[in-house]
Structure formats: C-alpha cells, structure tokens
C-alpha cells in the first residue's frame, strides 16, 4: 500500500513537471511576434537536468530545437500516460475490492437513512398515520371520558421494552392502496387500555391516504367500542 502510493505520487509529480514544461514552451512561443530565429529562454525543471541532452538550466534555443523539445515532451507525456496506466492496472484489483467495500457501506447507510426518513417524513408512512390518529383520539371527548386526560399511545412491545413499532398491514383492493394499523392507548385511569384500529385508503385523485375509519376498542371489562371517525 505504502510503496504503491509512493510510486503513484512520484509519477504524479513527474507528470506535473512535464505538463509545466509543456505550458512553458507554448507560452514562450517565440515565432509568433519575433523573427523566425528568435530565441527563448527556457528554464528547465530539475527533473530534466539529466546528463546528456539538458545539462544547463538556461539554454538559448533556436526554433527547430524548440519544436523538437515540444515534440519529444509530447512523446514523453504519452509514454508516461501508458506507464501510469500499466502501473495502475496492477493495483486495480485491490483498489476494486476497496471500492466495492466502500460502495456497499455507502449503499447500506443510504438505505437505512432512506427507510428512516421515509418513515418519519412521508405522509403515507405508518408512523405519520399513527400520529394523526393518536391526535384525533386525544381530542375526542368520549375517549377522554373513558381513559382520562393525558392519553398516551404506543405500538407493539418488543422484548427490550420498546413500543415504537406500530403493527400495520398494507393491501391493495380495487387498485387502491389500503393500510390498516393497530396501536394501543392508555390514559390516567388505572388499568384501562384501548386498542385503536385505523384504516386508511388512497385517494385516487390526490394520491394521498385518507382515513376510512378509526375506532377504539376498550380492552378492560366494560367492553365497548368508541367510533371516532367512520367514512365508509
């Protein structure tokens, strides 16, 4: 990992230097304004102070040499590209594995966020319908009379004492989506518990859920049913 990174960075630096040389050549192009034998001072980067061709940092170059340098630097650039590709193919396998791992992680996180946001903010989520129905139960005088004033609602209890999950069932009838929910309410009256049944139906024009019925079954002894809303 470390060594491969090192090669990559050094290669990257090499390419940058070549690119810098290239731009330098093209910006110091002498034959446009000056005479054809115009000279350009070319400061070469340290990497090119190799023995042989370029030994001095400041050279006076004729037009032809300029062209040649440009040409050869282009070839060097192409060769570097090929080398770079070749080197990266070797790491491609490992990089691909990391990439897959990262991708899986991101998609799992995104999926979880999608689920929770849909549950919390979508108007057709069970959680939202549960909240609306609970508000209607709280403001209903008969429910208050039976259960007592601060009414609380909860869903199915899990083993760890969480009661957030509201049991619901979705089905399609006559091409319209329906959803039925069941949750429980309790008030200040001791040992009184009610089960609230809600059914909502999709409105074909607006595409939103509308309440079909809400009724409360009182589970403790004087059993009765309170109808809060019935649009059937």
């Amino acid at each position, binding site marked *: 990992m470390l060594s491969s990174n090192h090669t990559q960075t050094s290669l990257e630096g090499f390419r940058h230097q070549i690119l810098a040389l290239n731009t330098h050549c093209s910006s110091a192009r002498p034959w446009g304004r000056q005479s054809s034998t115009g000279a350009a001072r070319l400061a070469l980067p340290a990497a090119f102070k190799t023995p042989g061709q370029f030994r001095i940092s400041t050279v006076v170059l004729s037009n032809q040499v300029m062209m040649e340098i440009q040409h050869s630097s282009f070839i060097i650039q192409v060769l570097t590209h090929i080398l770079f590709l070749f080197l990266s193919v070797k790491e491609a396998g490992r990089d691909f594995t990391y990439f897959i791992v990262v991708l899986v992680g991101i998609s799992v*996180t995104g*999926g*979880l*966020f*999608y*689920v*929770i946001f849909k*549950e*919390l903010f979508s108007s057709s989520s069970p*959680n939202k319908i*549960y*909240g609306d129905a*609970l508000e209607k139960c*709280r403001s209903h005088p008969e429910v208050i009379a039976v259960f007592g004033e*601060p*009414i*609380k*609602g*909860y*869903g*199915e*209890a899990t083993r*760890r*004492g*969480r*009661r*957030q*999950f509201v*049991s*619901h*069932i979705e089905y399609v009838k006559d091409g319209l989506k329906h959803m*039925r929910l*069941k949750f*429980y309410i309790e008030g200040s009256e001791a040992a009184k*518990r009610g089960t609230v*049944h809600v*059914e909502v139906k999709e409105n074909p024009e607006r595409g939103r859920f509308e309440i079909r019925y809400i*009724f409360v*079954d009182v589970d403790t002894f004087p*059993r*009765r*049913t*309170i*109808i809060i809303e019935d649009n*059937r």
Partner: protein
Amino acid sequence: MEEYAREPCPWRIVDDCGGAFTMGAIGGGIFQAIKGFRNSPVGVNHRLRGSLTAIRTRAPQLGGSFAVWGGLFSMIDCSMVRMRGKEDPWNSITSGALTGAILAARNGPVAMVGSAAMGGILLALIEGAGILLTRFASTQFPNGPQFSEDPSQLQPSPFGDYRQYQ
C-alpha cells in the same frame, strides 16, 4: 402483548444500563485481549499475561462508559415518552442526540454539536435498521398482526356493540 401489561418505562433505564455495560465489557474484553496480546513482549506466557492485564484494566472502563451512555439515553428516552405521551422513532433519535450533547458538554459547544449530530445519526441508523428488521420479520410471517382479511367481518362487531350502548 398481555404479558407486557406492565409499564416498561422506569425499569427500562436499569435494563438498558446493564445491557450496555455487558455489551461494552464483552466487546472491550475481546478487543483488549487482542491488543494486549500483540503489545506484549515475545513469549506466550508474557503475551497471555499482558492480554489479561489489558482486559482487567480496560474492559470495565469501556463497559462503564457504555453504561453511562445507555443509562442517560434511556433516561432521556423515558422522559420524552412521558412528556410527549407517544412512542415513536423521534424519541430515540432526539435522546441519542441529547445524550451525545450532554456527555460532550465539558468539551465546549462545538464538540457538543458534533457529538449530538453523531448521536442522532447513529440512533437514526439503528432505528432504520429496526424498522427494516421488523418489516422483514413481518413479511416472513404474513399473518403476524392479527387482522381479518375481509373488512366486512370487522364491521358488524363494533357497530353492534356500539348501537347497544346508545
């Protein structure tokens, strides 16, 4: 449902606290065992002893901090249930964020905000996983929630009862 007629809330704090301590102690024990083993001088005897020392000193610490987190979280959660009179995922997310903020309170407001965001995001992820899990479980057992298939069967009983009372 009938066996859970007891109110879970105040007792849940103790439950969560202990659960978090156990989780932290076991997880920290495994982690510290490996770490202590690797950081000790050569020799199986040394390594095992180092591993044991690391577990003894470090695992209860981690368990303790987990327990603090779990207990505070559960306390805030129960308070929110009490105040809002409603149990839904918002309680968990808010109490996760508040717990993070409170536990980072000594590090200044910036750290508090960051920690709160982390707590909220973490709890949101956990809640999302929980929702997915329950959904998955309910697709495995399609007749899990006891609803009658035909709505007309549901209809007469509430109405019949209701009219008798009027």
